[in-house]
Every structure is written in structure tokens, then in C-alpha cells.
């Protein structure tokens, strides 16, 4: 399809004898949220790693905006328009919230090679960073050290850093994990609006959020996509109930 933004073709990754992902082909179309669900250890984070470039695939391809990015390193894929969030926060813990988003802004403006002019005096960088913080509701915490943030705030900050990149596609690994009911609701509302800017490949355990948000759901079990469809189809699927929903719903 022409409006496919991100696609994987037969992605595969083994850790020793374990096939973490096995022939995974999914796509993400403009304007949609495509949720990937599956039990612990199903290979969801492995898939995210393969898409974003952190993990080298054994086989298969990743296409972004119709371009084969399989051979590209992580930073090149980011530049090509991929915005990723981590399941386990990968933030600079010693730095402030603002500095963490500034890093994203620096990446987005290709400005890691400016040596002498201070970041704090750069209006463009700061405007980008503050805008992203404001959108996730972290503007007031900008001077807080990342290590002092609550778990939920770190999740928000993860998303804010990805926002600064203004990516063509978001790839999010459990942005709601541990957020609590309130936080989950707020994040659900935010992601709902975000999809019109760029589609989201959403790995999530929170079924309420997934059913509320997803245009499509793919179910990953033991590294394989066992079902794919809209919310109603996935809810109705006996195979999915048995393999996954049976244990969590």
C-alpha cells in the first residue's frame, strides 16, 4: 500500500537456539496505531530493537517510507524518521529533564558538532525541547534531575524525547508500563491525538489502552505473529484468547 510508512518483511532474530522473532512481517500505515501484544518474552522488544536498528536481524528487511533501511545503523534510521521509546528508560539519569529532551533536539537539528556555543543560549533548541516537554506535561519538571523523577514521569520523558525528533513513525515499547490508572489514561489520550502526526507502532501490555487506541492489533507469541486484525477480530479470535488473552483478561 502506498500509505505504508513502516514495514517489516520476514524479520528474524535468534539468541542461540531461541527464536526471539520468527518471520515477522507487519506494517504501519499513515494515521494509525498498530498495537503489538503478546505474553512476556514473546519477542516484542526484540522486534522493536530490530526495527530501530539496535539489534541486528538475522534475516528480513525493514522499510521506512518505502526505503529499505535494513543496512542502516540506528542513528541513520533515526535521521530517516524513526522515533523510538524504550521499555526500560534509557535516559541520562544525572542530567535534568530539559537536558534529556535537548539531546533529542540536538539530534533532530543534526547539531552534535557545535563545540563552543552554549546550549542554554540556543533559542531554537530550547524551544523545541520545551514544546515537547509541554506536550507530555513535564514542562514544570524541566530542571528536575532525571534520577529524581517518578517512574511515570520517566515514561513521559521517554515519549518527549521521541517527540523532539518529529519522526515519520513512532515505535513505542510499553509507554504505559507502571503509569497507574491516571497516568495511563492521560497517556492514552495523548497517543490518541499523536497518531495524526505520525503513526505509532505500539507495544503494550495494558489491554484497556490497546483496545481503546488500536486501529489494528497483531499478536506475537513465541516470536511469531499468530493473528492480526482490528480490535473486534482480535477479541473474538479463539486462538488469541487461548494463547494470550486467556491469561491476562
Amino acid at each position, binding site marked *: 500500500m502506498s500509505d505504508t510508512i513502516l514495514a517489516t518483511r520476514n524479520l528474524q532474530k535468534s539468541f542461540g537456539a531461541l527464536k526471539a522473532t520468527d518471520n515477522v512481517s507487519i506494517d504501519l500505515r499513515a494515521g494509525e496505531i498498530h498495537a503489538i501484544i503478546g505474553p512476556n518474552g514473546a519477542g516484542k522488544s526484540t522486534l522493536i530493537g530490530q526495527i530501530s536498528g539496535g539489534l541486528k536481524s538475522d534475516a528480513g528487511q525493514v522499510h521506512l517510507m518505502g526505503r529499505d533501511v535494513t543496512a542502516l545503523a540506528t542513528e541513520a534510521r533515526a*535521521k530517516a524518521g524513526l522515533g523510538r521509546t524504550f521499555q526500560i528508560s*534509557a535516559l*541520562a539519569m544525572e542530567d535534568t529533564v530539559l537536558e534529556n529532551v535537548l539531546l533529542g533536539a540536538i539530534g533532530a537539528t543534526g547539531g552534535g558538532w557545535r563545540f563552543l556555543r552554549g546550549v542554554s543560549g540556543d533559542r531554537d533548541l530550547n524551544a523545541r525541547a520545551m514544546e515537547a516537554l509541554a506536550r507530555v506535561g513535564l514542562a514544570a519538571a524541566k530542571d528536575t534531575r532525571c534520577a529524581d523523577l517518578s517512574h511515570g514521569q520517566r515514561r513521559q520523558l521517554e515519549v518527549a524525547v521521541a517527540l523532539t525528533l518529529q519522526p515519520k513513525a513512532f515505535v513505542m515499547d510499553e509507554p504505559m508500563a507502571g503509569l497507574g490508572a491516571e497516568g495511563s489514561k492521560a497517556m492514552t489520550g495523548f497517543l490518541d491525538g499523536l497518531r495524526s502526526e505520525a503513526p505509532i507502532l505500539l507495544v503494550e501490555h495494558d489491554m484497556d489502552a490497546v483496545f481503546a487506541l488500536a486501529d489494528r492489533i497483531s499478536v506475537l507469541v513465541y516470536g511469531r505473529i499468530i493473528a492480526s486484525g482490528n480490535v473486534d477480530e482480535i477479541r473474538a479470535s479463539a486462538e488469541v484468547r487461548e494463547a494470550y488473552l486467556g491469561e491476562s483478561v
Partner: protein
Amino acid sequence: MIGERHVNLAVLAGLVIVPLWALWADEIFTITLTTRAVILALAAVGLNIALGIGGMVSFGHAVFFGLGGYAMGILAFHAQSYTPLQFGPLSLAGTKSMQVIWLVAMVTSALAAWVIGLLSLRTTGVYFIMITLAFGQMFFYFAISWGSYGGEDGLSIYVRNGFPGLNTLVPIQFFWLCLVALCVALVVQWRLRTSPFGLTLNAVRQTPQRVETVGLNPRKHKLVAFVISGAITGLAGALFADLNRFVSPTMFSWQLSGELIILIIIGGVGRLMGPVIGAAIFVALEHWLGGLTDFWHIWLGVILICIVLFGRGGVIGLLTGKEGPHV
């Protein structure tokens, strides 16, 4: 607790007051000691950029210190012996000009840092420590076997090199020159740390995978930082050789690499003035304890252990009550 800015200003004031007092009291040796501290501080500022900001625990920074030293030694040796410096088919004259020597020292060190960085930045952690140590040993043994420049005995330079408008033979004048070099390096370190490059490098140390996912290349940033770091330490090496009017393979020794790391830890890793405070304490201990016992390194070790155990931010951490630059 004292603000870090005040600590920094007090340290700078000390670097001006101590030699002025020594000049007034005619304590020439104190001026020499302070000069030594300033030069070691400069070398450590170089290392601090790699280690403190970039998290690269280089156990081979003596390579750059030694290269700076030998750049001075070789150029001045050919100038004082009126022999040409044979460089393949090229025949160059030596020089007694400090500016030329500094330039050669920095360029040579930067090139060496680039090559060493390319090869060793593929590794991290203990492997990086070991591979940089190995490079240090390589240069050390090469210098020992390099007979034309004194081998193990080193090279003596009879007259200190010159700088326009100064009489560098006068200790206080040479001191001011070294202090200006240190201040310039401190400004560079400070601007670097607050620039987009520095913010990125600082993040590379903490979370390289994040840096990649925002489209920046961690290894390239580390490499550039390593090159800048090597160049600054190389400049310090040239000044150190000029202070002693002597170069020898010990400038390449692993002990020297280790001492640079130690004095950064004592002062405060990644702190602007960490290298300066560390170098001042190191030189003071070396002088006073070294006069009392040959085993003064043991006491240095005790201090180091105390700092690592009880004051993670080094002396600056203790004074400011903040373990890191941001806490």
C-alpha cells in the same frame, strides 16, 4: 556548603597568590612546584574531557604527555646541536620556539589520539582500559629503545625554549605562560561541556543507545573528544619537558597515566576545576610526604581509597556537598 563557583574562584585565586607570595618571599622552588601543578592540571584537563565527560577511562594518556614531551625534546635537541631533523627524505631544522613546539606537540598528539581512538573505541569498560594501557606501554618501550634520542637516559635540553616578549628562564614568567595555557584549556573544557557537543558526549557516557536513537553517533563523538583530549595533554607534555628541560621515557609510563586518573578522582571527576584541585593536592603531597618517606604513594593510595569510599565527587564534591556536576 560552598557553591562550586566560589570553590573554582578560590582555586584560581590560589594559583595567582601562591606564586606571587613565593616571588615576594624569594621561594623560587615554590614557583617551580606551582608550575608543575599547573602543567599536571593542564594534562588532567585533557584527560577530564575524555574521562569525566565522555566516560572513557583512558589508562594511556601518558602517550600524549610523552609525545608532547618528545616533540619539545626532539625539536630543541636538533636546534641546540645544529643538526637537521631527518624526516624520510625531508630535512627539517629544529626549533627553540615554544609556539612551534606547542603546535607540533598538539598536532602529533591529536593524530596519535585519532589512531588510538579509532582502534580502541570499539571496546568499552575494562577492555578499553587495557587497550589504552597497551598503547602506553608500546610508546614507553619504543622511547626506551630509541637510541638517537637518548633511549632510556632521556634527552637534556640546555636552555629553556623561548616565547616572544618573555624571558622564559625567569621562573615566574614561565609560570604565567603555563597558567595562561591552563586557563585557556579550562575555558575550552567549560565551553565544550555546555555546547551541544558536550551535552551529547555527556549523554554518550550515560546512555549510548539513547544517543543513537536520536540520530547521533556515539562513537564519533567519543573519538572527537578523545582527539581534543589528547591534544591538550600533549601540550601539557611539551610544557612539562620545558619545565624540567629534560624528556625521558618515564613521560610515557603507565604510572603517569595512572597518576592523571588519580588526580582527577581526587579533585572530582568531570568537574571543571577537578583536575586543578587534584593536581595541586598531588604535587603538595608528592613534595611534603615525598620529603618524609619514599613510600608516599601509600598515603596517596589511602587518600584515594577514602575519597572513593566516602566522597564520590572528590574534593569538590566534599566542599560543595554535591557528588556530581548536577546533583
